[in-house]
C-alpha cells in the first residue's frame, strides 16, 4: 500500500499542481513559472527517492512507510511496489501501478526532462498560466503511462496526454502550428483506436480462471479478483491486468491462440493492431509523417518533451505489452518489425541529410534513432533447438538503453536549436556559421550532445546502437549490415550540421548582434544534459543495473514460452529438431491446430 501511495503521488502531483495554478492570477507570471518548476523539481526528487537508499527505519503508520519504505531494489527483476485495487468492478478494471527495471529508467527520464523543460519554459511568454497548467497535466499523463500496469489505466493515461499536447503545439507553436497540432492529434488517435480494438479483443479472450494457481498469485491481481477467480462458476473472468494477460499469452495453450480472421490467431491480430498503434508513436516509417511537423512547430520545451519522452512511450508499449502478451504474433511478425526498424533508420538518416531547417533535421534524426529501438526489440534471435537468448537480451537491453540515450541527446539537440532560434529567429542551416566564435560555451555543450547523438564511443548514443547491431547480426546479417552502415549516414549529417552551424569564419545571417552568451538558466539545462550524456556513455552500468534484470526476465519468459510451444510439437509429431528449426512458422501453425483439436474433444 505504501508503494502505491507513493507512486500515485508521483503521478498525480503535477495534476494537483495544475489545479493549484488555476487559482493564481494570470498576471503573476514569475510566480507561476517558479511554481511549475518547483512542482517538476519535487516530482523529480520523488522519483530519485526510489533509487537512493532511505534513511532511518521504516515507519509505523502508512504515511511514514510511504515516505521511507519506497526504495527500488536494483537487481530484482519483478515488479516492485505493485498493488492493484479495484476501480471499475463491472469491467474488472483495476487501479494498478507498479514499477520494474523497464519502467524505472523511463520514469526517471520523464521527471528529469520535465524538470529541464520547465526550466527551458522561461522562453514562453504568451499565456503563461494556461501553458503551465497544460504542461503539468502532460507530465501526469506521461508518468501514468510508465507506471500503469492495468491495460485500461494505461490507455487512459496514454490518451490523457493528447489534449494538453494538442493545445501546447496549437497555441504556442510556430507558424504552421494548427496544421501540426491536428496532424499530431489525428495520428495518435488512429493509433489509440487500434489499441482500443486490440484491448477489447484481448480482454474478452482472457480468462483468469485458466491460469494455474501459482501464476494467478504472481499476477498481482487485486485480492477481490483472486476471490472472484476462486469462486465456483463457469463464466470466464476477464481481466485488464497486464501481468495476468502476459501470463495468459505465454501459456502453451493460451486462449489468445484461438483463430480470429484469415487463419490468424487473436494474438497475431492483437499484436499487429498494438504494434501499429505504438509504431505511430515511436514513430516508424511509414507512419512518421506527423513527427517532423509536430517537432518543428512545437515550442522548444515541448519539442524536448516530445522527442525525449513521448516517443519512448511507443517503445515502452512494445516491450511491455506487445511482446509479452502476444508472443505468437511477435514471433510470426519479427521480420516485419525488424524490417520497419531498418527502413526507419535509413530513411530518417537520409531525410535528415536533406533538410534545410535545423529543427527539422533534428526531428528526422529522431526517426532514424528510434529505428534502432524497433530493430533491437524485434531482433528475435531465439531459434528452436538452440535456445540461446543471449543475443536477444542484448538487443532488448540495447533498445531500452537507446531510448534513454535518445531521450537525453534529442532533448539536448532540440534545446540547442531552441537557444539559437530564440536569439536569431530563424533556423535556416545555410544562414548559420561561426557560432563558435560568438558563443563558445554554448558550442562546446552543443557539440558534446550532437556527438552523443552520432554515437561516438564514450557518449550515451554508442552503447545502445552497438548492442542493437550485435543482436541484429545474429537474426539477419543483411539487416545488421544495413543498420551498421546507417552510422555512416548519421555521422554524415551530424558532422555536416556541426560544420555549417558552429564552425566557419563568421555568422552572416540576420540578427547577428543578438547572439549573446548563454544565460545561467540556459547553461544549467544544457550542461546537465551534456553531463548526463557523458555519464551514461562512460558508465552505462548505472542504467543496466536497474534495467537488465527486468529486460532479461522478459526475454527468458518468452524463451520459456517458445520452448514449451516447440518442444510440444517435436515430441508429438516426432520430427527431427532440424525440421522445426527450418520452418518454425509452420510448427506454430500446427500447434495451434492441435490445441484447438484438444479443446473441441473436451
Amino acid at each position, binding site marked *: 500500500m505504501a508503494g502505491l501511495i507513493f507512486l500515485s503521488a508521483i503521478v498525480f502531483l503535477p495534476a494537483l499542481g495544475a489545479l493549484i495554478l488555476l487559482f493564481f492570477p494570470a498576471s503573476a507570471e514569475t510566480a507561476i513559472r517558479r511554481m511549475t518548476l518547483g512542482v517538476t523539481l519535487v516530482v523529480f526528487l520523488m522519483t530519485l527517492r526510489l533509487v537512493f537508499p532511505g534513511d532511518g527505519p521504516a515507519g509505523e503508520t502508512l504515511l511514514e512507510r510511504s515516505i521511507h519504505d519506497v526504495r527500488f531494489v536494483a537487481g530484482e527483476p519483478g515488479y516492485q511496489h505493485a498493488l492493484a485495487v479495484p476501480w471499475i468492478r463491472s469491467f474488472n478494471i483495476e487501479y494498478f501501478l507498479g514499477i520494474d527495471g523497464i519502467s524505472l529508467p523511463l520514469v526517471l527520464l520523464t521527471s528529469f526532462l520535465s524538470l529541464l523543460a520547465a526550466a527551458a519554459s522561461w522562453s514562453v511568454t504568451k499565456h503563461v498560466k494556461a501553458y503551465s497548467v497544460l504542461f503539468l497535466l502532460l507530465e501526469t499523463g506521461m508518468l501514468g503511462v510508465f507506471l500503469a500496469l492495468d491495460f485500461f489505466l494505461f490507455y487512459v493515461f496514454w490518451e490523457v496526454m493528447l489534449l494538453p499536447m494538442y493545445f501546447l503545439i496549437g497555441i504556442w507553436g510556430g507558424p504552421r502550428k494548427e496544421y501540426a497540432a491536428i496532424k499530431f*492529434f489525428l495520428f495518435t488517435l488512429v493509433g489509440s483506436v487500434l489499441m482500443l480494438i486490440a484491448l477489447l479483443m484481448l480482454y*474478452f479472450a482472457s480468462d483468469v480462471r485458466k491460469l494455474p494457481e501459482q501464476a494467478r498469485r504472481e499476477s498481482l491481481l487485486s485480492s477481490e479478483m483472486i476471490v472472484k477467480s476462486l469462486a465456483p462458476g463457469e463464466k470466464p473472468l476477464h481481466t485488464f491486468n497486464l501481468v495476468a494477460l502476459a501470463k495468459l499469452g505465454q501459456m502453451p495453450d493460451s486462449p489468445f491462440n484461438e483463430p480470429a480472421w484469415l487463419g490468424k490467431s487473436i494474438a497475431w491480430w492483437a499484436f499487429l493492431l498494438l504494434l501499429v498503434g505504438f509504431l505511430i508513436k515511436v514513430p516508424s516509417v511509414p507512419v512518421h509523417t506527423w513527427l517532423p511537423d509536430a517537432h518543428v512547430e512545437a515550442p522548444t520545451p515541448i519539442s524536448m518533451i516530445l522527442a525525449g519522452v513521448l516517443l519512448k512511450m511507443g517503445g515502452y508499449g512494445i516491450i511491455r505489452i506487445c511482446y509479452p502478451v502476444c508472443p505468437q504474433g511477435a514471433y510470426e511478425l519479427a521480420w516485419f518489425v525488424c524490417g520497419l526498424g531498418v527502413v526507419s533508420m535509413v530513411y530518417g538518416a537520409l531525410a535528415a541529410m536533406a533538410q534545410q531547417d535545423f529543427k527539422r533535421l533534428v526531428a528526422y534524426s529522431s526517426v532514424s534513432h528510434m529505428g534502432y529501438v524497433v530493430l533491437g526489440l524485434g531482433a528475435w534471435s531465439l531459434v528452436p533447438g538452440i535456445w540461446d537468448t543471449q543475443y536477444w537480451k542484448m538487443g532488448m537491453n540495447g533498445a531500452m538503453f537507446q531510448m534513454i540515450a535518445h531521450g537525453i541527446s534529442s532533448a539536448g539537440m532540440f534545446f540547442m536549436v531552441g537557444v539559437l532560434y530564440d536569439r536569431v529567429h530563424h533556423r535556416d542551416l545555410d544562414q548559420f556559421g561561426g557560432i563558435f566564435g560568438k558563443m563558445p560555451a554554448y558550442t562546446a555543450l552543443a557539440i558534446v550532445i550532437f556527438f552523443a547523438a552520432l554515437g561516438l564511443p564514450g557518449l550515451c548514443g554508442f552503447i545502445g546502437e552497438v548492442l542493437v547491431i550485435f543482436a541484429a547480426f545474429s537474426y539477419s546479417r543483411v539487416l545488421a549490415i544495413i543498420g551498421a552502415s546507417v552510422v555512416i549516414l548519421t555521422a554524415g549529417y551530424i558532422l555536416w550540421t556541426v560544420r555549417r552551424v558552429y564552425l566557419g569564419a563568421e555568422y552572416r545571417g540576420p540578427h547577428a548582434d543578438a547572439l549573446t552568451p548563454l544565460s545561467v538558466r540556459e547553461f544549467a539545462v544544457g550542461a546537465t544534459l551534456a553531463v548526463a550524456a557523458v555519464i551514461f556513455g562512460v558508465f552505462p552500468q548505472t542504467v543496466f543495473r536497474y534495467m537488465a534484470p527486468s529486460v532479461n526476465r522478459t526475454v527468458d519468459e518468452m524463451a520459456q514460452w517458445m520452448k514449451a510451444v516447440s518442444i510440444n510439437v517435436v515430441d508429438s509429431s516426432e520430427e527431427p529438431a532440424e525440421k522445426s528449426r527450418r520452418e518454425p512458422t509452420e510448427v506454430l501453425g500446427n500447434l495451434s491446430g492441435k490445441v484447438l483439436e484438444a479443446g473441441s474433444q473436451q
Partner: protein
Amino acid sequence: MNELLELITRIEQNLAVSVRLWIPEICLVVTAIALLLQRMVFPSWRRGASFIMFVGSVAALAVLFWQTAAQSAPASPVGAFLDVLRLDRLAAFFRGLILLFAILFSVLTWLTHWPRIEDRGEFYVLFLGSVIGMSTMVAAENLLLVFLGMEMASLPSYILAGFEKRERRAGEAAMKFAVFGAAMAGVMLYGLSLLGGSLGSLNLPTMGANLAALASNQEFHGHGLSLIVGTLMVLAGIGFKLSAVPFHFWLPDVFEGAAAEVGAFLSVISKAAALGLLTRLCLTLLGAEQASAAGLPGPLIPFVVGTLSLLAAVTCTYGNLAAYGQGNFKRLLGYSTIAHAGYLMMPVAAAVAALPVSRETARWAVASMLFYLVVYMFMNIVAFAGAAFLSRGAPGEKIENYSGLVRAAPGFVICLTLTLFSLVGLPPLGGFAGKFAIFASLASAQLWALLVVAALNTVFSLFYYVRVVKVMVLDPAVQPPSFSLPLSSPQGMFLVLATTPVVLLGILWQPVFDLVCRAAGCQ
C-alpha cells in the same frame, strides 16, 4: 357469473396498483393543468411557469425514485393497466432519465429567458405532453400503446420545433418535420399492424411466444414476408424518431431553425424514448422465454442484427462525415446527434445478436447503451446550452464568429471544450467511458466489423469537434468580443453543474454503471 366477478376484482386490483405506479406521470398532468391555470389566476407572477414546471418535474422524479427504491429487489414487473404497460426497472430508468432531463430543461429555459414569459406556459404544457408520451413509449407492451405513445410524443414536438414564430426558418423546419413525421407514422402503423396480424396478438410477450412457436413448428415461411416487411416498417418509424440515416432529412433543418433548447429536447429524450421502445420491442419479441426452449426464432435474429448494424454503421458514418462542412454551430450539433444515434443503436444490435448465445451478454449490452445515454444527456445539455447562450448573444450561430472566445469567456469555453472532447470520446471524460462500454458490448457480441466502424468513426468525428475548439481557443479574435459569461453567473453555474458529471462519469463511473446494470437486469 363468478368468473365475471373475478375478472372485475382483478381489474379493480390491477387498476389500483397501476394508478399508483403511474403517479409520476399523473404528477406531470397536474403540473400541466397548473401551468394553464397559472396565467388566469396569477397573471402577474412572471417566473411562475418555470417555477411550477420545475417543482412538478422534481416531484414526479422524487415519486418515481421512491417507488423504484421501495420495489423489492428483483422487481416483480407489473403489467399495468391490464398488461398494456410494463413498469419494470428498465422503464423506470428511462422514465427517470426523461424526468431528470425535464428538470434540467426547466432550469435551462429559465436561464436562457426563452421562450418569452407570455408564451412559456404553453411551451411547457406542450413539452409535458410530449414527456408523458415518451414515458408511455418506453413502458408500452401493447402495440396500440406503442403507437399512442409515439404519436403523443411526436405531435407536440412538431409545434415545439416551430415555436419561434417570428423566425421563418423555424416555421419551415416545423412544417418539414410534421409532414415527414406524419408519413413515417403511417409507415410505422402499417408495420405494427402487419406484425400484430401475423403473430395474432397486440400484446408483445404473447407475440414473442407466438413467434417462438412459429419458429419451432417450422411454419415460419408462411409468415416470413409479412414479418420481415413489418419489422422493416417498424424500424423505419423508430429510425425516424432516432434520426437514423436514411430517415434523417428533417433533422439538420430543424436543428438549425428551432431554438437550441428544443434541439436539446429532440436530441436527448426523444432519442432516449425511441431507444427504450426499440430495446423493448427487440428483446420481448425475439427473446421470449419459451423461445430458448423451442429454438429461437432463428432467421429473424440475424436479419434484425444485420439491419440494425447496417443502419447504425451508416448513420454514424454519415453523421460524422456530413458534419465536416457545417458553418452553423446548431446544425453541426444536429449532425453530431445523428452520429450519436448511430453509436446508441449499436448496443441494441449487440443485444439482439447475443440473445441466442447468452441473455446475460444481451443485458450487458443494454446496460452499456443506458450508460451512454446518461453521459450523452449531460454532454448534449452542455453543448446545446452553450449554443443557446451563444446564439442569443453577440457571437450568434456562425462558428467563424466564435474566434478568440476563450479570451472573453474562458470558463465557458473550458466547459464547452471538455464537452466537445467528451463527445469525441477521449478519456478521462465521460464520453470515453460510455463509448468504451458500447465498444465492449460489440466485442462481447462478436460484432467485430461494427466495432471497427465505430472505432474509425471516433477518428472521423475528431475533426469537426476540434474545429469548433480550434476557432474558440487557437484563432485570434477578429473583433473585440462582446460576449461574457462568468462561471459565477447563474448561467455559468448551470454549465459547471452539467459539465461536472461529464468529467466525473469518466473517472468514477462504477456507481452509475451499477445503476444501469440493475435497470437492465444484469446479475
